[in-house]
């Protein structure tokens, strides 16, 4: 599998900024629409759902990067942080819309709902987990945290599962959209877990085959 890996594509800084900027256009556009009464009868809900949907879209992109690399299609790992951060910003705007525009900062209502309704508890769990991932999405954290960083960022698979469940629960019935995105999230998340398990297995095997390169610390 690794032999089929596509070569790394290195983005320029400008490119990454442009991706972020373009990635935020759906939010900006809909905010403008909403502020100018162009989002129909229930603008707050439309905006709230739109932000959730785009968060999931960028999450799918983020999760698809590794399999695309492994299948030899294209290697965009250097773009992954940018897409991951877009997921985070959409989640922030989604949650802020819920708290401010929808619940009008009624903190008691927000707290009451978010801690008792499984649908929102799952969303909250996903959001809470996204925060440390976003906070450590920088070179300094990668350097300082070492292996812990990798372990932490495997949390993205849990975010995928939670977001998928939250999405499915956001509708009265199963819909093509919610089932489609949730399936994408579950499959990509599961693929990530499988990749990790395999990778760790290989590491252990290769470690066993090359005892010389492994400094023995015990016995």
């Amino acid at each position, binding site marked *: 599998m690794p032999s089929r890996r596509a070569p790394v594509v290195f983005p320029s800084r400008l490119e990454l900024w442009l991706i972020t900027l373009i990635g935020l256009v759906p939010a900006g556009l809909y905010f403008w629409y*909403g*502020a*100018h*009464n*162009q*989002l*129909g*009868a*229930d*603008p*707050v*809900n439309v*905006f709230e759902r739109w932000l959730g949907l785009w968060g999931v879209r960028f999450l799918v992109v983020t999760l698809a990067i590794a399999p695309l690399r492994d299948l030899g299609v294209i290697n965009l790992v250097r773009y992954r942080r940018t897409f991951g951060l877009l997921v985070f910003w959409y989640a922030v705007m989604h949650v802020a819309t819920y708290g401010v*525009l*929808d*619940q*009008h900062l*009624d903190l008691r*209502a927000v707290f*009451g*709902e978010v801690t*008792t*309704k*499984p*649908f*929102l508890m799952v969303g909250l769990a996903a959001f809470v987990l996204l925060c440390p991932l976003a906070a450590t999405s920088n070179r300094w954290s990668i350097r300082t945290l070492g292996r812990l960083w990798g372990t932490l960022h495997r949390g993205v698979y849990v975010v995928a599962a939670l977001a998928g469940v939250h999405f499915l*629960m956001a*509708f*009265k*019935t*199963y*819909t*093509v959209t919610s*089932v489609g995105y949730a399936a994408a999230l579950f499959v990509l998340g599961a693929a990530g877990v499988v990749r990790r398990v395999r990778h760790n297995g290989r590491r252990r095997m290769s470690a066993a085959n090359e005892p010389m390169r492994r400094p023995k610390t015990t016995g």
Partner: protein
Amino acid sequence: MARLRLPAVSGSDITSREAWLNRRSFLVSGAATGLGIGSARAAGTLKARATSYTVKDPPTPRVDVTTYNNFYEFGLDKGDPVQNSGGFHPEPWTVRVDGLVRQPRTFSMDDLAALMPVEERIYRMRCVEAWSMVIPWDGFALAALLGVVEPLGDAKYVAFESVLRPDEMPGQRGGLASLDWPYVEGLRLDEAMNPLTFMAVGLYGDRLPNQNGAPLRLVVPWKYGFKGAKSIVRIRLVADMPRTTWHSMAPEEYGFYANVNPTVDHPRWSQGSERVIGSSGFFGAGRRTTEMFNGYGEQVASLYAGMDLRRWY
């Protein structure tokens, strides 16, 4: 007395709220001075009699009432019904009223027009999804219709069945989100006989648009909106609680009674407050506190005396 007339009206005949309000005041003054109010508007007017069944809150703009709909027969999104109901034929139409009644009968819309004077009622509409509207309906009390067929003593419930027309209703052609068609709703007989319980044939003075349940729908203002079966073809009086669509699909989310109750939450969200629908962008309509029985407690609370409304949600 104004009679129910059902002239055709195009779906795009959408009046702004201002125009509607102007028209109303015109109608009122016209009636007061003895002018023929029939000439006040083009074909399409139902000429409904005003009633005291009205609320103070401003009516939701007509454009929102007719473009933001839950009518799964035409699709899942709120915008689907207006988009996908163009091919639906609400005429000719009959509704069969039978079951435990002395005089079972099939009514055409003309029969109903001849029998039932049309009146206007401005009701609150509270959706189980925690949003609300205020809608000027035109129609008649269900009790008046039931009076015509004479329910028998052992009739305890009323079941409402919506039309089944997969050819004209894309949402009925199966697929993931499909419900068990046809849509069925139900009321206890005493609820059905309550003066508030209404059969609408129009809104904002005109015949019901397809997306709002043409040509005939149920309106029960103290219950969540899904109780209001649309495009009704059959009304059955029965002895046992009918198997209603949403209740049998997800009993822990949608009760048979479905009375608006701010103290009993939906499993996925609180019912304590509601988003007020209205095209005013992010910072307009806002939120309001949900009232017990949607504010109609005075008229209906006695129906549930002694009942545990947490158990019978």
